[in-house]
């Protein structure tokens, strides 16, 4: 009898478990858009600057201006703007009736508060305005002035990274911190809450798992009729899990960092397409211009001639295109028709003979650093080593973790001769890339391992950035790009593209037709439509 009772109990438990195992969760009554990202995600506009964080704040906040696919900007939270004749004062008329997520209205006071906070904290995108913006002044409830210290040509373009915050919400949630009377300026609160007026607002944010946002019903701007009710930014798990989730329709858009074989595998799934576009990032081999032998222009040119670029863009990073200089062709101010190196061993030898190190090649070993987190770079290193050996240049490959790379580039004597790193524009203009790559103030950061440190370059860059007339500014950008190619401080490898697998069967992603070449803006989810009834 006891055995029978035991058996019965076991049977009930097992069937319960089996039922639990084979049934899925409760039906979802809201449409949801789930996008994978490499983590961490910060939703405080004074901290956010990486891909997932930038994408998040674009959805949670409004900016004064909004970028266009052509690399221009149009008024957004600002209804209109005027620039003073001395190009130092920008006066913005705000749209009336823009509501923050707590229901209060966005006013000029909030704009001033946001700028003051950003300049004080100094993190995230603050470097775009620090040292350039002198003050923010409130003229009336809907009019605000941003006053510059000196003319700054790309200022309007850079304002796409200026995300407006609700002063009352931030100040009601401050804690003790390093900013004097402002405490922590609400930084801890803003780790998991938003204070914005964007089309979406934070619903849940378990920090290490996902950011769940829901539609803000009182959003003032354009929202596509079938934009998702909820948007979930997921921390991407391993590639095999991503493929499984795409197969099960548990993920609508993948992150941009999946291995090639995963993309190929996902492309075979019914209803899944691969979207890709050049996003303005450029991959470089940064040559240390301060350390022998790469401090010699002819040695650098020899290395530029020796590399087999075709191998890189066809085999190692397939489907990419070779870069023409430091700026990607989709970025505003890109100079067309720049000279482009290709592999030519004779020219490489010719340049090498002109180099002052030609007689000391045995002692002049070139150190090529490889970031251990990017396996493909080892292939680039091996190719570079083999190519350089053909003209008698010894190359030593040294693997480094990212932390070590950040440390060694800060010291020109420690910095390896060749450092493969990609750099992204922070606003849709060549000025962003040129400043990152060749201004002395960025020397020693991972964006500029070249250590160009040239007074002439600084003057040219400062002059270009201070030029308000866009055509003139672009002309000056072009000149700097020409000089950069001529001096060969860098080997310009290829233009990167952003690549995502997505559920084309039930997701309409209009930005794909004309991608905006600025990080994060193609993930503005109010334009992306989800049709659950079309799920295959």
């Amino acid at each position, binding site marked *: 009898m006891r055995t029978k009772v035991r058996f019965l109990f076991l049977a009930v438990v097992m069937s*319960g*478990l089996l039922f*639990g*195992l*084979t049934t*899925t*969760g*409760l*039906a*979802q009554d809201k449409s949801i858009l789930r996008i994978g990202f490499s983590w*961490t995600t*910060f939703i405080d506009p004074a*901290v956010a*600057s*990486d891909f997932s964080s930038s994408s998040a704040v674009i959805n949670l906040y409004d900016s004064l201006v909004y970028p266009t696919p052509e690399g221009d900007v149009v008024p957004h939270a600002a209804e209109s703007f005027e620039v003073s004749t001395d190009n130092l004062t920008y006066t913005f008329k705000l749209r009336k009736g823009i509501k923050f997520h707590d229901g209060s209205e966005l006013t000029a006071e909030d704009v001033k508060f946001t700028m003051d906070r950003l300049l004080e*904290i*100094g*993190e995230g995108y*603050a*470097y775009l305005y*620090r*040292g350039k913006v002198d003050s923010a002044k409130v003229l009336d409830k809907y009019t605000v002035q941003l006053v510059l210290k000196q003319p700054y040509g790309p200022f309007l373009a850079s304002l796409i990274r200026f995300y407006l915050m609700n002063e009352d919400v931030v100040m009601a949630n401050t804690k003790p911190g*390093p900013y004097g009377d402002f405490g922590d300026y609400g*930084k*801890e609160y803003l*780790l998991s809450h938003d204070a914005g007026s964007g089309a979406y607002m934070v619903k849940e944010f*378990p*920090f*290490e*798992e*996902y950011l*769940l946002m829901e539609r803000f019903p009182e959003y003032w701007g354009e929202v596509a009729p079938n934009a998702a009710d909820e948007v*979930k930014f*997921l*921390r991407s*798990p*391993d590639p*095999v*899990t991503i*493929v*499984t*989730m795409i*197969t*099960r329709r*548990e993920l609508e858009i993948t992150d941009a960092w999946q291995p090639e074989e995963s993309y190929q595998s996902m492309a075979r799934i019914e209803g899944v397409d691969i979207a890709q576009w050049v996003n303005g990032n450029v991959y470089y081999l940064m040559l240390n211009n301060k350390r022998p032998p790469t401090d010699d222009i002819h040695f650098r040119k020899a290395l530029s001639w020796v590399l087999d670029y075709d191998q890189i863009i066809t085999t190692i990073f397939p489907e990419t295109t070779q870069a023409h200089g430091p700026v990607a062709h989709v970025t505003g101010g890109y100079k067309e028709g720049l000279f482009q190196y290709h592999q030519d061993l004779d020219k490489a030898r010719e340049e090498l003979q002109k180099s002052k190190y030609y007689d000391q090649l045995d002692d002049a070993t070139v150190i090529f650093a490889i970031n251990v987190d990017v396996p493909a770079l080892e292939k680039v290193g091996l190719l570079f080593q083999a190519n350089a050996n053909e003209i008698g240049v010894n190359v030593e490959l040294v693997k480094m*973790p*990212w*932390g*070590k790379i*950040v*440390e*060694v580039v*800060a010291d020109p004597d420690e910095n390896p001769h060749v450092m493969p790193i990609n750099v992204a524009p*922070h606003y849709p203009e060549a000025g962003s890339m040129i400043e*990152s790559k060749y201004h002395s103030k*960025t020397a020693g*950061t*991972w*964006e500029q391992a070249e250590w160009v440190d040239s007074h002439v370059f600084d003057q040219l860059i400062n002059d270009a950035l201070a030029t308000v007339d866009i055509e003139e500014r672009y002309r000056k950008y072009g000149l700097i790009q020409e000089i950069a190619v001529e001096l060969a401080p860098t080997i310009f490898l290829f233009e990167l593209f952003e690549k995502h697998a997505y559920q084309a069967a039930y997701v309409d992603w209009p930005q794909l037709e004309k991608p905006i070449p600025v990080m994060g803006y193609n993930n503005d989810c109010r334009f992306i439509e989800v049709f659950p009834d079309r799920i295959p």
Partner: protein
Amino acid sequence: MAFSTYLVRRLAYSLVILVGLSILIFFIARVMPGDPARLALGPRAPADVVQRWREWMHLDEPLYVQYYYWLVDTFHGSFGQSLYTRRDVAIDVKTFLPATMELVLFSGLIMGVFGVLLGAISARYHDTWIDNVLRVGTYVGVATPAFVFAIFFLLLFGYLFKILPTLGRLESTITPPPVMTGMITIDSLITGNFVAFLDALKHLLMPATALALGPLAQEIRITRSSMTDNMLKPYIAVEKVQGIPDRVINLKYLLKPSLIPTVSIMGLDFAALLGNAFLVEGVFGWPGLSRYGIQAMIQKDLNAITAVVLVIGVIFITVNIIVDMVVAYLDPRIRLRGRSGMT
């Protein structure tokens, strides 16, 4: 020496070990390459902002001064600020530890129950086809890393049959139980939320099993080996001659003493699960402490590295003390040694 005295002495030793561990990891973390403030703030952060961070985190002070500040913070229940998550590491530990503990406890349960059971079966039927199958299985288990099992399960039950969830701890459509222990299965049981309990169990099944299989194979092998050794001992032969039933001999006189090496190894394996969990947490998007620890190391998040190593150290020591107590229960010689005053 009484067992209680022995326990107090073990706890005192443990405290010394923890202080030593904290000093060691504190200094090792700080000699790793890379400027943590620059890594956290990015290449374009102005120098004064980076410097303010260094000062705020005492990174510009000598190492022994930094350690002093860290100790003071720790005694106040704070592990300092994380450069990776930008919040107090104590909050991070509180957030991520329950997820890993739930995973590891469930793995430990699988490892303990099936390790002993299959080991006993293997010994009972030693040198038969059952034993041979189990032994081959254990070779595979010992030789295969946890993430390979994880991917295999994912492809089988997630991709092919689609019967188990692939990511996270709970479906978004299910209301999570209120946080008490932070372990969803336990919290949902306490609050009687059986829908959440079953769903959390479904989410746990693949990662916990993948994590458990390696050590499980080891427990099977050790239990089998220990039991087959003891089978040949004279006291078993005497008990058989006395006519004691096989079931009683196997369970009471054979299995119990044979478990002593298994339990000892199980303690070490359990603690090792904490360190290995990141392999599985990455595959299943499990928001645990191990994955957090790996991220902290990549980002050179000094306070987080120190805290994670220390927390794992505390768990490791605690588990070993518990194991010692269990072994003392299983082995009368240890208890008797205590009573007779032997050390």
